[in-house]
C-alpha cells in the first residue's frame, strides 16, 4: 500500500506574511505615494469647500468653518483609538509583531487629533459661548480621552523592552476600550444632572448638504492623512528597531574582537 504524501504546510496567510518587515516595507512603499496624492487632493477639495464654496451659517456666521477641522479631528481621535484597540488584540492574541508597531505608531497620532479637536473647540467656543472652556459633557469626554492617550504614551516610554512595552500597553488599551464607553455615559449623565440654565446648541437644527459634503470630504482627508502618517511612523519604528539590533550585533562583535 502506498502512503499518501504528507500534505504541504499551508501557505501563511497574507496578513501573517506582513510580519516580515521587508514585506511590509515593500507594501508600504507601494502604497505611500498614491495615498499621499489622494490625501493632498482630498484636502484641496475639502478645504476649498470648507472655506470658500460652503455658505456661512445663518446663526454662527463665518466661525462655523472651524467645524470642518474640529469635527473630523474628533472622528479621527476616536478612530485612532479603535485602531489601537484592534492592534492590541493583534498583539495579545496573535503576537503579530506588526500590531506592536501599529499600536505604537497610532498613540501620538490619536493624541494629536484629540488635541486639535480640543484646541479648535476652545477657539470655536470663545466667540460662540463666550468662554474658552466649558465643562460640557462632550468637551469633558474628549479631555478624558486625551488624558488616556497621554497615559498610554507614558507607559510606552516607561518600559524599555519593546515587546514587553507592547503587551503592557495592549492590556491598558483594552481596559481603556472597555471603560471609555462607561466614562462617556457617566459624563453625559453627570452633565444632564447639572444642566446649566442656558442650553447651548452647537449645531443648528440639521446640517445642510452644502455643509455636509465638505465636512465628509474633510473627514476622508483626515482619515487618509492618518493612514499616510501611520505607514510612515510604522516604517520609522521598524527602521529604529533594526538599527538597535544592528548596534547590538556590532557591539558584540567589537567586544569579541
Amino acid at each position: 500500500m502506498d502512503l499518501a504524501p504528507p500534505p504541504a504546510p499551508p501557505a501563511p496567510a497574507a496578513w501573517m506574511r506582513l510580519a516580515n518587515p521587508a514585506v511590509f516595507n515593500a507594501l508600504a512603499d507601494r502604497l505611500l505615494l498614491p495615498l499621499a496624492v489622494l490625501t493632498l487632493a482630498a484636502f484641496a477639495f475639502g478645504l476649498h469647500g470648507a472655506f470658500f464654496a460652503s455658505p456661512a451659517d445663518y446663526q454662527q456666521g463665518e466661525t462655523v468653518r472651524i467645524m470642518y477641522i474640529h469635527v473630523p479631528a474628533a472622528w479621527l481621535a476616536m478612530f485612532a483609538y479603535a485602531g489601537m484597540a484592534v492592534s492590541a488584540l493583534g498583539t495579545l492574541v496573535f503576537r503579530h509583531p506588526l500590531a506592536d508597531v501599529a499600536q505604537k505608531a497610532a498613540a501620538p497620532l490619536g493624541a494629536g487629533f484629540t488635541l486639535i479637536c480640543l484646541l479648535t473647540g476652545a477657539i470655536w467656543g470663545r466667540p460662540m459661548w463666550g468662554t474658552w472652556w466649558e465643562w460640557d459633557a462632550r468637551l469633558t469626554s474628549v479631555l478624558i480621552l486625551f488624558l488616556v492617550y497621554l497615559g498610554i504614551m507614558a507607559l510606552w516610554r516607561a518600559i524599555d523592552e519593546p515587546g514587553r512595552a507592547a503587551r503592557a500597553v495592549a492590556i491598558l488599551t483594552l481596559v481603556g476600550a472597555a471603560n471609555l464607553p462607561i466614562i462617556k455615559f457617566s459624563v453625559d449623565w453627570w452633565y444632564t444632572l447639572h444642566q446649566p440654565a442656558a442650553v447651548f446648541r452647537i449645531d443648528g437644527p440639521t446640517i445642510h448638504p452644502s455643509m455636509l459634503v465638505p465636512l465628509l470630504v474633510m473627514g476622508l482627508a483626515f482619515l487618509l492623512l492618518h493612514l499616510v502618517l501611520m505607514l510612515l511612523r510604522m516604517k520609522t519604528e521598524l527602521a529604529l528597531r533594526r538599527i538597535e539590533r544592528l548596534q547590538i550585533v556590532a557591539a558584540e562583535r567589537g567586544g569579541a574582537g
Partner: protein
Amino acid sequence: MTTLRAIMIRELRLARRIGAGAGLGLVFFLILIALVPFAVGPDQKLIGRIAPAILWIAALLATLLGLDRLLQADEDEGVTDQLLLAGTPLPLILLVKALAHWLATGLPLAIAAPMLGLMLAIEPAAMLPLTLSLLVGTPTLTLIGLIGAALTVSLRRGGLLLAILVLPLTIPTLIFGVTIVREAAAGRAVATPLMLLGGVTLLMVVIGPVAAAAALRLARN
C-alpha cells in the same frame, strides 16, 4: 481555598506591620479633612457642599498611596513567581490581594464616613447613603488600581505613572459616588446612581483581576 486564605492572612498581617493598616489610614483621612477648612475658609455651608467631593478624593488618594507597593514588594522578593507556581488561578489570588488592600483603605473610610461627614457638615439624611456609596464604590478604585499596579510592576518609580494611568478610569465611580450623596442631601432618590455604581464595581471585579493577571504574566513571558 487554603492558599487563598493563607494569602489573605499574610496580606492583612503585612498591612498591619508595615503601618499601612486601618488606623493609620484613618489618621490620613482626618488630616485631609482638617486641611479643607484651611484651604476654603471656615464657611460651614461651602464645606457642606463640597464635602462629598472631599471624601471621595480622599478615598482616591488613599487608594493610590498603597498601590505602587501592592504588587511590587512581592515582585522584588520573588513572591510573585511562587504565586504563579501555586496552581491557584492568578486572578483569584490578585482578587484576594485587592480585597486585603481594600480592607485597609476603603473599608475604614466607609465606616468612619458618618463621623467625618459630621465634621464636614453633610446633611444627616445623606449619612447612610454616603457610607453606602463608599462601601460599594471604593472596591472599584482598588481594582482599577490593581491593573495599574500590575502594568507598572517592573518600574522603579512607577508611582506617578500609576496615578496617570489609573485616575481617568475612576471617573465614573467618582461621578456616581458623589451624586448619591448630593441627591440624598437634596432629599431625592438614590437608587439609580447606587445601582450604576454597583454595576461599575461588579464589572471591575471581573476585568480588574483578569487584566492584572495578564499584565503580570506577560511582563515576565
